[in-house]
């Protein structure tokens, strides 16, 4: 053991590093009784932060299904990898940047996009699509507008410059996010299956190379901040938010792609949360190696940076590469061409220790495995969420369907998000076959007639009411959205956003939601291949709605058969597929209940996984056979909201049969496992006939045509009115006029 400079760690240091006394005790054990110095304490602090170590969730994450014959690499690497045929792989992950985005929305969101891009291209994939899942506080809250504006321009500012299309996402509002917004960003990339790069370091003596931007003092302790509740002082944490430079990221992508095309890289990882510390520790740990770093060689943006600052900086756009022997010159040339920093900052050893030197002096010496792998794992106490009673439609006020429809189409959670997505370049790379606004985004696989379908979803109010059912529903909705464009769903990434796990009811939400996700993934053979956990989303003790955002990826084998939500022509027959006979319309936790009746109550609609699979497979087969002219899955707002969305997208109305009673339940209930399709009139009866023997419920709802949504009793709402309400809310709100 090398001698390290003396250290005086005070209880205040331990506390300010977010470590418990018990954890500090474990540090002393690992160091054989020696006290850590401040550099070492800082390293323990970030490595054992909730953000990096998953210490509260690990026990439950292990229960998730992660395997299928098409999974090439599941959770544990920078991103998940699946086989999409033709020798290609899709590499993807979703990650949160919640805490920084609340404090500094533009940079928080921008660097969230930058971070997730790096997670994907570090594995050898060229990023081809960005998605996001955003949650803001109540529109009435004084901070909400500024946060929406900053986050949206931050996502656009980064993605647009890097040149990766932002093709879709979701935006919700709820007062529970007033003090903790959620910014979850997802990237999907494409790689050759025989050119995938991993992060396990190998080969003692191999050079450790730093590339990208210089290291500054930004983002120090970001991971620790993201692992604690906010209090009244959260705005004072602005200095811990990183600053992004998308132009450098673009250069870094191109330089890495160029280097990856050679045979120079042994392993590679981006410097994300906890920067140089976590990247070097994780690479060494995965490969069972040791590492020595000479910190004075780290490219620095500012003078006089200390080892502590260099190890904990979260400066953006940096990567760590282990090169194969003799490849330095080749690699250096590529990074110089792209005008990026390139520095050999150390080498691998076989000692299993991380030795940090600064101008020859040892400033830290830590065993790698206990730190990276034997980080704490807690079995936190939890209590299950009490089931809520089922709310019957008869107990919910019924208002004229026309008024209810208008209210819903213009409410913050359903209104068109055009104001948001028009700030994202969704068409750069010229492969976007389906832009934002449909069920799933569709991005063509370059030079082929195949495509990836991608969707991000979660219905937090369902999860709050019943974490298990809500967890299932989030998974199933992505599966349904991919199905609705004609895709075969393959795998998901999950981004689990919750409150403080040290509170048993919150831990109960986490456990319930993970079990629900697991159940849905197992049944649909739709495994989890990557993910991220964001806990402590609380301010002054108020937690967010539990929000396990799911990002699903599927494949469309023939783009000519892809469906969209828009009605295509008058005279098509509208079919409702999947409505169970017994259902009278599930209004518990529906948007009708919240927005029209002013109540947030009851059990959420249950998800029947067997039914989902049966119905979804049937719908997908019809689409792939080229028999469907438009398709939309039903979710928020129920049947008539879904129909209106299809009508607005195609600017063609519809005439609907009598929906039956109770009318509000039938029209606005949020029963799961349902799709609306339009088909050519001549084919409708044939589809009904084929569905019957396989027990698929199909109803003829009516026909497309006209410029209104018309019910059989001749009551109607014009598309023009609905469009104004639907398109009007967001721009009016953002201009501060409502």
């Amino acid at each position, binding site marked *: 053991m090398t001698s390290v400079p003396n250290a005086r760690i005070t209880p205040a240091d331990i506390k300010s590093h977010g470590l418990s006394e018990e954890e500090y005790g474990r540090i002393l054990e690992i160091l054989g009784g020696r006290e850590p110095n401040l550099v070492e304490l800082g390293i323990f602090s970030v490595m054992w932060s909730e953000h990096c170590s998953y210490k509260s969730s690990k026990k439950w994450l292990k229960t998730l299904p992660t395997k299928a014959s098409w999974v090439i690499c599941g959770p544990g690497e920078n991103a998940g990898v699946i086989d999409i045929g033709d020798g290609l792989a899709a590499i993807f992950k979703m990650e949160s940047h919640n805490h920084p985005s609340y404090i500094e929305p533009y940079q928080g969101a921008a660097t969230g996009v930058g971070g997730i891009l790096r997670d994907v291209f570090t594995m050898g994939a060229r990023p081809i699509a960005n998605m996001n899942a955003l949650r803001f506080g109540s529109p009435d809250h004084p901070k909400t507008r500024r946060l929406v504006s900053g986050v949206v321009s931050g996502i656009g500012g980064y993605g647009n410059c890097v040149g990766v299309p932002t093709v879709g996402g979701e935006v919700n509002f709820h007062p529970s996010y007033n003090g903790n917004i959620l910014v979850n960003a997802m990237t999907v990339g494409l790689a050759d299956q025989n050119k995938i790069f991993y992060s396990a370091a190998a080969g003692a003596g191999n050079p450790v190379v730093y590339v990208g931007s210089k290291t500054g003092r930004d983002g120090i302790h970001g991971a620790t901040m993201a692992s604690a509740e906010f209090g009244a002082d959260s705005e004072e944490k602005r200095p811990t938010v990183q600053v992004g430079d998308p132009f450098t990221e673009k250069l870094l992508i191109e330089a890495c792609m160029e280097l990856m095309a050679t045979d120079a890289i042994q392993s590679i990882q981006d410097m994300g949360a906890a920067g140089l510390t976590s990247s070097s520790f994780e690479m060494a740990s995965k490969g069972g190696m040791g590492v020595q770093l000479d910190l004075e060689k780290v490219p620095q943006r500012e003078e006089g940076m200390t080892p502590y600052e260099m190890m904990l900086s979260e400066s953006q756009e940096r990567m760590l590469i282990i090169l194969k022997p003799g490849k330095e010159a080749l690699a250096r040339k590529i990074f110089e061409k792209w005008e990026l920093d390139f520095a050999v900052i150390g080498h691998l050893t076989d000692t299993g220790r991380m030795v940090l030197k600064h101008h020859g002096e040892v400033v830290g010496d830590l065993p790698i495995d206990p730190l990276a792998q034997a980080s704490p794992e807690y079995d936190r106490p939890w209590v299950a969420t009490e089931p809520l009673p089922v709310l019957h439609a008869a107990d919910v006020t019924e208002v004229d369907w026309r008024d209810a429809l208008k209210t819903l189409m213009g409410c913050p959670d359903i209104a068109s998000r055009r104001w948001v997505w028009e700030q*994202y370049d969704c068409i750069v790379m010229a492969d976007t076959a389906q832009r934002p606004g449909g069920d799933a985004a569709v991005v063509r696989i370059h030079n082929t007639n195949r495509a990836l379908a991608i969707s991000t979803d979660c219905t937090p109010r369902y999860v709050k009411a019943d974490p298990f059912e809500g967890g299932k529903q989030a998974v199933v909705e992505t599966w349904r959205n991919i199905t609705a464009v004609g895709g075969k769903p393959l795998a998901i990434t999950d981004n689990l956003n919750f409150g403080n796990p040290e509170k048993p009811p919150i831990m109960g939400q986490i456990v319930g939601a993970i079990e629900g996700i697991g159940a849905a993934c197992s049944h649909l053979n739709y495994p989890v291949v990557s993910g991220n956990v964001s806990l402590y989303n609380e301010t002054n003790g108020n937690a967010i709605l539990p929000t396990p955002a799911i990002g699903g990826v599927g494949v469309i084998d023939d783009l000519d058969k892809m469906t969209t939500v828009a009605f295509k022509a008058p005279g098509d027959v509208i079919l409702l597929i999947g409505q169970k006979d017994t259902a009278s319309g599930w209004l518990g936790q529906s948007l009708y209940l919240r927005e029209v009746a002013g109540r947030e109550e009851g059990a959420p609609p249950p998800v029947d996984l067997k039914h989902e699979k049966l119905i979804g497979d049937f719908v997908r087969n019809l689409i792939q056979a080229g028999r469907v002219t438009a398709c939309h899955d039903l979710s928020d707002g129920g049947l008539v909201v879904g129909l209106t969305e299809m009508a607005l997208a195609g600017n063609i109305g519809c005439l609907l049969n009598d929906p039956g009673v109770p009318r509000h339940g039938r029209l606005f209930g949020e029963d799961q496992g349902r799709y609306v399709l339009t088909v050519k009139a001549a084919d409708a009866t044939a589809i009904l006939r084929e569905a019957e023997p396989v027990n698929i419920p199909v109803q003829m709802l009516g026909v497309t045509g006209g410029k209104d949504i018309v019910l059989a009793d001749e009551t109607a709402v014009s598309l023009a009115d609905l469009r104004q309400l639907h398109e009007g809310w967001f721009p009016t709100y953002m201009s501060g006029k409502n």
Partner: protein
Amino acid sequence: MKAAVIVFPGSNADRDAAVAVEQSIGAPPKMVWHRDTELPKVDFIVVPGGFSYGDYLRCGAMAAHSPIMREIKRAADKGTRVLGICNGFQIITEAGLLPGVLLRNKDLRFICKDVYLRVEQTKSDFTRRYKSGEVIRIPVAHAEGNFFADDATLQAIEDKGQVAFRYASAAGDVSDETNLNGSRGNIAGIFNEKRTVLGLMPHPERMSDPVLGGADGRKMFDGLVEALS
């Protein structure tokens, strides 16, 4: 016909342009790195969209002074056709190949959407396949596409028939309502006096394939091939 696409470090629509050019020509264009000091012998040069050098300064201002721009100017003077799309329009305008300047959009936000353009000038190799007054649908994706020129310059541009496209409605009406970014005269694209250089903010190369939602942009590349082959 031979074509080249210029690649700046922050170009991100270089591939988009190359794909559209190849589709019309039948052969891939040459990709020319910004630090190259020589241009290959070509009939047609695309300066593509993107963020050339990050564009933290004025868009295109740094790229306009890159080594390759000298060569492009020289080629343009000799009559080589030059097409600047989006950031490419900003760059060739900054470099003085076209009059005017591109300012921040009037509402200060990035805008990505399909827009309708009215074709104003069909007497050029770029627009010969369009009909005069034809309305085409092509996407924009920019934050600084607000075309500005002083009164005298604007008058000269109009008088000499240098306006290629204007932002319009689906029916072809040109009004303040259809002016998405605040451009003077609703100008979406302009020629040099000889109509051998075209700069436009919309992206014809991203609307040259029905899978992407339409092919109105393809006629531009097909027209060039027809004229230059």
